[in-house]
């Protein structure tokens, strides 16, 4: 089309394409991808994407479009917790958006591609071109029948304990695999807290004594080491194993606090057998007491009845 030639022939109507608005502050996403090549049939997977703004001075609407021209069937698998149109509140520089994937039980074993376009909707101006900013999230999903166990230790710490309690190592495990998993083994070396070259105890907890973390979930689990430590400060060196590989090492202090003393006896909150015995004695006592009261009342009632008769 040659508009210049047309313009010579026909009546000219001047139109004003007014000055456009200056666009809003920047926009972005982190990360720009939902990528999981190890989904099992029937599994559920979630990925958090942060929608980020350097100057969130105003509320801003975000609209989402999910496209999968190569694999339209996966449009039914993908959803977003916040819906396809929502507000990014002012004052929030990193807004979390959760992308959910629900794999059907009859999904074909192959790789699927899609994308999610996030488009911000600035306030419309009276005239001119309004510039809208957006970002594209690429979605790459693989359905497999192969289990792929894997995990990351996000955080870990040795907790302070009371005398008589097991040493507790608390781990936040992110299961990045497609089946439930747990560390293979957790090892601890306990050193004197004042002379950290002096090894006092070595202990380990094997997988069967650790809790599972479900696929794609994050959970805190504890490794409890049954070691007998006097009150004081200790230095612990910990190794977390995935098969034979050390995936996390920690070196940190922890304290053993003195247990409570009652009538000269040291009673640890972890001496469960004492509490069990005390509990049984109390129950037995209460039972006997009730029986005695019941019997004495019964006797009195009989006596009264005898007197009446």
């Amino acid at each position, binding site marked *: *089309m*040659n*508009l*210049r030639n*047309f*313009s010579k*022939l*026909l*009546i*000219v*109507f*001047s*139109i*004003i*394409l*007014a*000055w*456009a608005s*200056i*666009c809003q*502050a*920047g*926009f*972005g*996403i*982190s*990360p*720009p991808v939902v990528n999981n090549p190890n989904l099992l049939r029937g599994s559920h997977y979630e990925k958090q994407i*942060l929608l*980020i703004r*350097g100057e969130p001075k105003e509320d801003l609407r975000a609209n989402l479009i999910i496209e999968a021209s190569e694999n339209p069937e996966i449009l039914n698998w993908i959803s977003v917790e916040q819906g396809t149109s929502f507000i990014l509140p002012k004052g929030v*520089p*990193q807004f979390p958006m959760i992308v959910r994937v629900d794999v059907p039980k009859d999904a074909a074993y192959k790789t699927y591609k899609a994308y999610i*376009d996030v*488009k911000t909707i600035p306030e419309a*101006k*009276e*005239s*001119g*071109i*309004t510039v809208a*900013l*957006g*970002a*594209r999230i*690429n979605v790459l999903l693989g359905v497999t029948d192969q289990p792929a166990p894997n995990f990351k*230790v*996000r*955080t*870990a*710490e040795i907790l302070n304990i009371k005398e008589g309690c097991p040493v507790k190592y608390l781990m*936040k495990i992110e299961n990045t695999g497609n089946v439930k998993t747990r560390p293979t083994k957790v090892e601890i070396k306990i050193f004197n807290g004042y002379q*950290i070259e002096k090894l006092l105890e070595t202990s380990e907890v094997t997988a069967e004594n650790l809790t599972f973390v479900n696929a794609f979930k994050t959970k805190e689990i504890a490794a409890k080491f049954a070691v007998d430590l006097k009150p004081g*400060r200790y*230095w612990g060196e910990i190794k977390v194993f995935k098969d034979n590989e050390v995936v*996390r090492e*920690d*070196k*940190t*202090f922890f304290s053993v606090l003195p247990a409570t003393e009652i009538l000269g006896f040291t009673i640890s909150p972890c001496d469960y057998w004492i509490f069990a015995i005390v509990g049984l004695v109390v129950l037995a006592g209460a039972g006997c007491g009730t029986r005695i009261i019941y019997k004495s009342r019964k006797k009195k009632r009989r006596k009264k009845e005898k007197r009446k008769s």
Partner: protein
Amino acid sequence: MAEKLKKSFPWLIILLCGFLIILGFYSQEIKADSAATTLSVGNVVPIVSGVALNAGGSISPTENTIVDVDITGKVVDDNGCSGLKATTALAYRSDLSASCVPSTSNDNNCYTGVACATSCSGTVADVTCAADIWFHADSTDSGGWSGYTWLGTILATDSADTTHQADSSGVEMIGSLCLDVAASIAYGTVAAGGDTGTTNQQTLISDTCNTAIDVLVSGVDMTSAASSGTVAVEYQHYYTAAFTFDGGDGSTLTGSPTAAEIACAKPTSHGPTDSSDDLFWGIGIIVGTPTATDYGGVDTFTATND
């Protein structure tokens, strides 16, 4: 009287014993005061432990600015943590653990001299250091540094200038896509049947996170409420350099996001970002388009991986 004395006698004995005991303690104290004792308490090196960067979570940058990331840990000083002279921290890409020092500070990969706040109780101090990480910090989950991680280190120095340091476990710096468009598309007045010719509107697109980007551009028809007129989206053209409308270089804008093929590498500095590129715009107006001053539309710039 004799009877009374007899009754009071045991009490007198008790009082006397009490007096002798107190006297004994008192004399012992006097002895202690008069003895000359000397003791030197040696310095013990402070020990840093339990260091965590961003509480073990991945770090996402914030668009075109800093994100506060905490480096936390404990310092034990057996001479009393109030005797700690300084605690500082580092945050760096893991391959730089040996070389990240103040003289090599770099907002892409090595943050030094991070100030710390300490909360001291006896011999143990809880330490929190806030690192301001810039948006262009190197990503480690994708791109050229994938396979590495980011680490935090806390250094403690006591009054005797002895130091100790410990590192966190590695966390990912997430590669993120961000953009800013720092100019408008202002076509001004164009006659019906005319076009913008060699006059282009220019949009400066800036990459304001830590990965290279391209942009996908799309638009909608411009409409006028006053005249009920429409300028179809395809009459807007764009190109990565100055162009003449309908001269063959410009690409037609459509409703579907299309790659503009700009060149925005991963930024390496801020204030402003050093990664940006221009996109040039022109428009043609077909004959029959009603005159109006309120034609408006929306053009969308979508950041995507380059």
